[in-house]
């Protein structure tokens, strides 16, 4: 009783005061420290990049407005076509693998069997290291002659797969390393969501005599739909941005077979100094990400 009175006392005068509250002008000072660099180094470059995409911009001389020419050039450029095709392939390989394997690992750790916290640590650990680490260690493991992977595959009668040195395999090799790297985030997001599934839901299903699989399909998965959708969106965007693994592992090769859009943008900007063209390619990727995200949202809402 006294507690409620005290609580009322505290809230009662706060109400009317809140409405007539004067503006906290100091708030602008508080946000300025973050907002000024944010506008300068993040928002301004977006608009500046949109402008650069419509110009011919080399390292010397003045930029020249060329209208849509960069974009029409990009549509005719076969290397842009290859880069976009590869980037979509990366997404189609990496996203399902990360979602399915990450979810399986999360289900396993969520059983809380002995040593499950060790398993959690190991599953997540690749996520915290740099692309250089991922790239170099996998280049070594994928070595055709002396690499670990081919050594153990030989026991199954699979001989000398040229993981990173043939046009047929390089994209798959880079994708495998990327799954190992990226999985940690999906894994912890799934794990957190699984731990939030109310216990009594499991118990009710058990009482009804549902099997393990039925429980998974009918009880748990419907609960997890929002987090699955979130993981798919995040992973899709990060896979379509793929760059550093490609740079370290294959440099886009052999013969552009593992090149990606951002990798091609990097080559155009740094080696050819076609800054306008590079920006146009980046804008095209951004448009593709927006379209894919919207389509994904619509599909999720449909169901």
């Amino acid at each position, binding site marked *: 009783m006294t507690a409620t009175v005290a609580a009322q006392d505290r809230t009662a005068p706060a109400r009317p005061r809140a409405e007539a509250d004067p*503006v*906290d002008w*100091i*708030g602008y000072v*508080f*946000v300025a*420290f*973050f907002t000024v*660099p*944010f506008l300068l*180094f*993040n*928002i*301004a*470059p*977006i608009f*500046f*990049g949109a402008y*650069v995409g419509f110009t011919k911009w080399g390292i010397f001389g003045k930029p020249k407005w060329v209208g849509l020419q960069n974009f029409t050039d990009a549509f005719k450029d076969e290397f842009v076509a290859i880069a976009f095709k590869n980037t979509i392939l990366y997404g189609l390989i990496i996203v399902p693998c990360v979602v399915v394997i990450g979810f399986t*690992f999360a289900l396993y750790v969520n059983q*809380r*069997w002995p040593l499950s916290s060790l*398993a959690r640590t190991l*599953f*997540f*650990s*690749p996520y*915290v*290291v*740099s*692309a*250089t*680490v991922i*790239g*170099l260690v*996998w*280049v*070594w*493991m994928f070595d055709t*002659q*002396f690499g*670990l992977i081919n050594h153990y595959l030989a026991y199954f009668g699979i001989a000398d797969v040229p993981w990173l040195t043939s046009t047929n395999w390089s994209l798959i090799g880079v994708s495998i390393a990327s799954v190992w790297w990226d999985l940690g985030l999906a894994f*912890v*997001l799934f*794990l*957190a969501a699984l731990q939030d599934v109310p216990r009594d839901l499991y118990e009710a299903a058990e009482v009804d005599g549902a099997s393990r699989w039925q429980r998974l399909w009918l009880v748990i998965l419907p609960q997890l739909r929002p987090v699955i959708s979130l993981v798919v969106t*995040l992973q899709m965007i990060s896979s379509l*941005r793929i*760059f550093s693994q490609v*740079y*370290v592992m294959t*440099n886009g090769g052999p013969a552009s077979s593992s090149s990606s859009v*951002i990798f091609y943008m*990097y080559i155009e*900007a740094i080696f050819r100094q076609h*800054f306008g063209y590079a920006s146009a390619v*980046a*804008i095209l*990727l*951004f448009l593709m990400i927006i379209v894919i995200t919207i389509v994904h949202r619509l599909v999720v809402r449909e169901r």
Partner: protein
Amino acid sequence: MAASLARRINRRLQPFGLRLATLPVWLIGLAIALMWAMPFVWMISTSLKFPADVMTVDVEWLPRRATLENYAKVFTEYPVARWFFNSIFVAAVSTGLNIVFGAMAGYALARLRFPGRNFLFFLFIASLMVPTEITVVPLLLAIIKIGWWNSYQALICQPLTYVYSVYIFRQFFLSFPRDLEDAAKMDGASHFLIFWRIAFPLARAPLIAATVIVFTFNWNNFLWPLLAVSDESMKTLPVGIAAFAPVIGTRTQLEGFSLGMAGITILSVPTLLLFFFLQRYFIQGLSSGAVRG
């Protein structure tokens, strides 16, 4: 007979949450978890081998003769010490500034009332839709124009824009009781004093989470440092070590992988240690924020 044995085993396993039927699943899962970490073991093992012992027909998980020669060589023949310093300096400064600025902004967005506050938060969140990769080329042009190319300012300015810290502090202050701050306000303390002496010290959990996560992103940052500097002496560790990749430099083709593995061991140890000791903050921070770079 068999049935009663099974029952006995099940009783033994029960305290661990296991049954005879789930025992294989448990073991297979553990085996996969150990396999998942094998690339790290292989990395460290190779880094301790003499270059001549690296390319072997049989896999040798333990070096037949261990040596620290590769580490010595990496430090003496390459500016790895300098790259290490650059990485530490850039990551520490940009993380520190990003966290303090982010905490102030997060606090203001949660606690103070001023026009445009919701729009600002919307702008921060909406900017996550635009991949940083889109902004790097125009930002590079701007950096060159103002003479910042190859400088620490260039390396530090871009990671100041990570929205993650604003988000996590705003989230914290929205759900944190404001009694203490109200009491201080009654005593006539200024907003700045309240934030710095009362609110910020209370926000320990988001402070640690944001620090370890943002530091890790900064330590691993790749594309921007690759573009923003080109002098060997200005490179950060990930960009410098990347030159050990066979497709980029020739060193590995000549000497094998032991040098490169020593390089990436040096590169991965700081963030791996940070993660092992502050795992809880890492995982909670990421699953409540769900943001990358």
